[in-house]
């Protein structure tokens, strides 16, 4: 199933307008000129401005910045924001956001998936609605909001 959702919720717009900033030292960054080949795993937020090839497993937020690219078999994180290139299977326990500059090929799974206008996406969208009670609210919200077009 290929889904084309050319709108995103106002909450997601807000989130994408204000890039996440963490003041703690738990933030990691793969710079624009950097290339990582191999397995990346761990805790904390990660911003990818460069290139990552390999598997990515993160207990934290993953941001693929504009100009950044990730080519992985599997990408697992708590939440994912994509403004760059991503190829692979994305599994998030929280929301997945595709910004206007995102180019994504692969399957997306998250509690909520938002796709901004201008984003390119080909693959399967999987919002799990049989989530536990505390996550169910977000998932249902995503279902009611996602198909609305502007």
């Amino acid at each position: 199933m290929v889904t084309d959702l050319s709108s995103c919720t106002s909450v997601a717009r807000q989130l994408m307008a204000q890039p996440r900033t963490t003041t703690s030292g738990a933030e990691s960054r793969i710079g624009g000129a950097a290339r990582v080949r191999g397995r990346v795993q761990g805790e904390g937020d990660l911003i990818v401005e460069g290139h990552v090839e390999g598997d990515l497993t993160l207990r934290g937020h993953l941001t693929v910045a504009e100009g950044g690219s990730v080519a992985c078999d599997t990408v697992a994180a708590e939440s994912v924001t994509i403004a760059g290139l991503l190829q692979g299977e994305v599994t998030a326990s929280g929301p997945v956001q595709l910004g206007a500059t995102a180019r994504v090929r692969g399957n997306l799974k998250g509690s909520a998936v938002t796709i901004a206008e201008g984003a390119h996406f080909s693959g399967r969208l999987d919002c799990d609605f049989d989530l536990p009670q505390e996550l169910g609210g977000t998932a249902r919200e995503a279902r009611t909001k996602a198909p609305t077009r502007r």
Partner: protein
Amino acid sequence: MASTVIGAGIIIEGEITTDEDVVVVGVVRGKVSAKEAVTIQQGATVEADVTGGSLTVAGTLTGNITSTDRVDLQAGARVVGNVKAARVTIADGAQFKGNVDMDL
């Protein structure tokens, strides 16, 4: 702020290649090659051959170091491996096992 930061909770098994600088606070196993400064901070564990410009080590490093500029092993550093650089400093309190080659 450095362009590439491997945070405290992050483990990378593989290769990091960059034209810019790298700061490691977490764990890297594999290979690190940078054109600019490489900093291995206190608490970091690097099991990799490291090449770069100016190299500063305050954490644990197992592997060979090759620098086009200088290598500074700071107090608290634990380094096992060979160091190849024109300028090398080993601070009081740094542990080092390996060969130093300043013949560049």
